[in-house]
C-alpha cells in the first residue's frame, strides 16, 4: 500500500511516557499520499492526539518514541529540533482543539498569522500583512482587515478557529493535521467550519490527518478512516463501509452510538459497551502488555529516543 514516494509514512510508531514507560501508542502504521486525507477516530486516551503530536514532533520531553516517521522518504525521528521547526507551520501544520486558548491572548490575531508566514518566508517584500488579510478572507472571515487587528478575546470561538486555520494554511502546507478542530464549537458553527476545511484543503491540495471522536464529523472530511483503541489501530476502512459493515466490535459500538436516528423512540440509547465489553477490552490489553507484543516493536530508532528536544 505504501509507495516509496509517500508524503508521510508512519511505521510501527510506539510512544511511551515517563520513567515507567506508560505506553500511549503501540505499533501504529499508516501512510499518506500527497493530497490524501485520513481520519483517525477513537475515544479520548486512544492515542490519536499523541500520534498526531508525534508526527509534528511536538510531544512532551518525557515521551519516548520508537518506530519510524518518514516525511517524503526522510526519517523525522531523531532529527534536530531546528530542522523539525523548519517543517512545522510550513510543510506540515496543525489545527488544535481549543480555539479559546490556542491563540496568544496578548497579541493581535493578524500578527499571529503574519508571524507564521514571516517565520518561514521572511518579510523582505512587506507582503506579510497582505497575505494575512488574504488568508483571513479565505477562511471566511468577513472584514478581514478589522479582524486582523482584534485580540483573541474579542472574537467568537468560530472566528478564532478560522484564525487558527488561517495560521495553519498561510504557508500552503502539504499536510494539515487537525486535532478535533470543531469539538469546542457549537453544532451550526461546526458544520460551517468543516465545510470550509474541506474547501480550503481541496483548494490547497493539502493532505490531511483529521482526528475526531465523532465518526459523523470525520466522514465529512475524509473518506478513509482509521479506528484507534487503547493506542492501537483496530480497523481501517472507507467511512461509508465503517458505517454499513463495521468489522471490529468496538467500531460496531461507535457506529451504533453515532446512528441515534436508527433508535426507535422510547428505546434505551446504545453504548459502545453493548458491543465491546470491558472484559474483552481488558483481555486485549493484557495481550498488548505481554512481552511477546513488545518484541515486535522496531528498535531502529532506539538511540534517538526523544522527539521534540531542543
Amino acid at each position, binding site marked *: 500500500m505504501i509507495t516509496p514516494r509517500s508524503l508521510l509514512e508512519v511505521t510501527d510508531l510506539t510512544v511511551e511516557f515517563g520513567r515507567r514507560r506508560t505506553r500511549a501508542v503501540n505499533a501504529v502504521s499508516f501512510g499518506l499520499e500527497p493530497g490524501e486525507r485520513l481520519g483517525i477516530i477513537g475515544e479520548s486516551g486512544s492515542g490519536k492526539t499523541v500520534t498526531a503530536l508525534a508526527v509534528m514532533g511536538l510531544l512532551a520531553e518525557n515521551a519516548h518514541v520508537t518506530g519510524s516517521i518518514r516525511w517524503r522518504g526522510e526519517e523525522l525521528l531523531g532529527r534536530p529540533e531546528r530542522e523539525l521547526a523548519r517543517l512545522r507551520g510550513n510543510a506540515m501544520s496543525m489545527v488544535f482543539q481549543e480555539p479559546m486558548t490556542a491563540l496568544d491572548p496578548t*497579541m493581535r490575531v493578524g500578527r499571529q498569522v503574519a508571524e507564521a508566514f514571516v517565520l518561514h518566508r521572511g518579510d523582505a517584500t512587506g507582503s506579510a500583512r497582505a497575505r494575512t488579510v488574504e488568508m483571513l478572507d479565505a477562511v471566511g472571515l468577513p472584514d478581514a482587515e478589522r479582524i486582523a487587528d482584534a485580540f483573541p478575546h474579542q472574537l467568537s470561538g468560530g472566528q478564532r478557529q478560522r484564525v487558527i486555520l488561517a495560521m495553519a494554511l498561510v504557508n500552503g502546507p502539504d499536510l494539515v493535521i487537525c486535532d478535533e478542530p470543531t469539538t469546542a464549537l457549537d453544532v451550526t458553527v461546526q458544520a460551517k467550519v468543516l465545510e470550509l476545511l474541506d474547501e480550503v484543503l481541496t483548494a490547497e491540495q493539502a493532505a490531511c490527518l483529521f482526528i475526531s471522536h465523532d465518526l459523523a464529523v470525520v466522514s465529512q472530511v475524509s473518506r478513509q478512516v482509521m479506528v484507534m483503541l487503547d493506542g492501537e489501530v483496530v480497523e481501517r476502512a472507507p467511512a461509508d463501509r465503517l458505517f454499513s459493515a463495521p468489522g471490529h466490535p468496538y467500531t460496531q459500538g461507535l457506529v451504533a452510538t453515532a446512528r441515534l436516528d436508527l433508535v426507535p423512540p422510547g428505546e434505551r440509547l446504545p453504548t459502545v459497551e453493548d458491543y465491546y465489553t470491558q472484559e474483552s477490552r481488558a483481555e486485549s490489553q493484557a495481550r498488548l502488555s505481554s512481552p511477546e507484543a513488545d518484541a515486535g516493536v522496531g528498535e531502529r530508532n532506539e538511540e534517538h529516543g526523544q522527539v521534540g528536544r531542543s
Partner: protein
Amino acid sequence: MGRYLRRLGIFAVTLLGASILIFAVTAALPGDIAQVLLGTDATPERVEALRREYGLDRPLPLRYLEWLGGVLTGNFGISHLSRQPVLALIGPSLAVTAWLVGLGILGALLIALPAGMVAALKRRHWQGFAVNALAQLGMAIPVFFGGMLIVLVFSGWLGWLPPNGYVPLRTDPVQWARHLVLPVATLAVVQGAVLIRYVRSAFVEVLSEDYYRTARAIGWTPAAALLRHGVRNAAVSLVTVIGLQLSAVLVGAIVVEYVFGLPGLGWLLLNAVGQRDLFVIQGTVMFLVLAVLVINALVDFSYLLIDPRQRAQGEIG
C-alpha cells in the same frame, strides 16, 4: 474616572492612618529626644525644661494635629537633632535609596529573567538543576553577609572599588558609579535569586499553555516560542511579584545601606529612631508608605498595558 478618584481616596486614608499609627508608636517608645540629647546623667529638671522648649509636654493629639497641618502646607517639621527641615534631610537620602533600589531591581531582573527562562526550559536537564541550586544558595545567604563577602573580595583583596561611602551623581558621576557598584550588585544578586523562582514558575506555566504549543506548531523553536509568546504572558504574574519585591526592598535596603555606609532613607530612619527624632521618623515613613502606594498603583496600571483582556473593549464582528 471614578476609579481614579476612589484610588486617590484610598491613598489619602492609608497615608492618614499610617501617620497616626507611626506618631502613636513613636510616642509610646520609652525615652524621648530630650533625654537622648542630654544623656543619662542629666537632672530631671533640665530634661523637663528641654521638653518644654521642644513642645513635647503638650498633649499628643494636639502635637499630631499641628504636624498634620504643617504637612498639608508642605512643612514636614524640623529635626530636633540637627535643626534642619525634615524635607532637606529626606531629599538627598531619597536620591541615594532610589538609585540603590532602582538599579538593584533592574540588576535582579537582568539576572532572574534569563536564568529563570533557562530553568524553565531545561527543567529536566542539568542546566535547570544548576540554576535552581544557585538560586537556593543566593536565597540562603543573608544580605549583610553577602555584602561583606563582596566588599572583602572586590574592595579588600582586589582593591577595585571603594568599600563604602557615597558621592552624589552631580558632584562626580564616576565616583558615584564606583560607590554604587558593590551595593547594587549585592542587592541584585540577593533579589535576583528570589526572583528566579517566580520567573521559572511563570514560564513553566507558559510551557503548558495551548498558545505555546501553537507557537511551536507554526515553527518556533522552544526558546524562541518562549521569548516571543511567553514573556508578555508571564509578565502579568511577574509584575505583581516585582511590585511586592520593590516595596520590600525599599524598606529592606536598610541593611545594604548600613553595610556599605550609604546615607539613604533606611539609614536616616534608623538613626532617627535611635534618637527619637520624631518628625524625621514621621517624614521618612510617610515617604516610604507613599512610595509603596505609588508602586502598587503602577503595578495595577501595568496590567492594562500588558494584558489587552484587562482593557474594557467590546466584541468585534
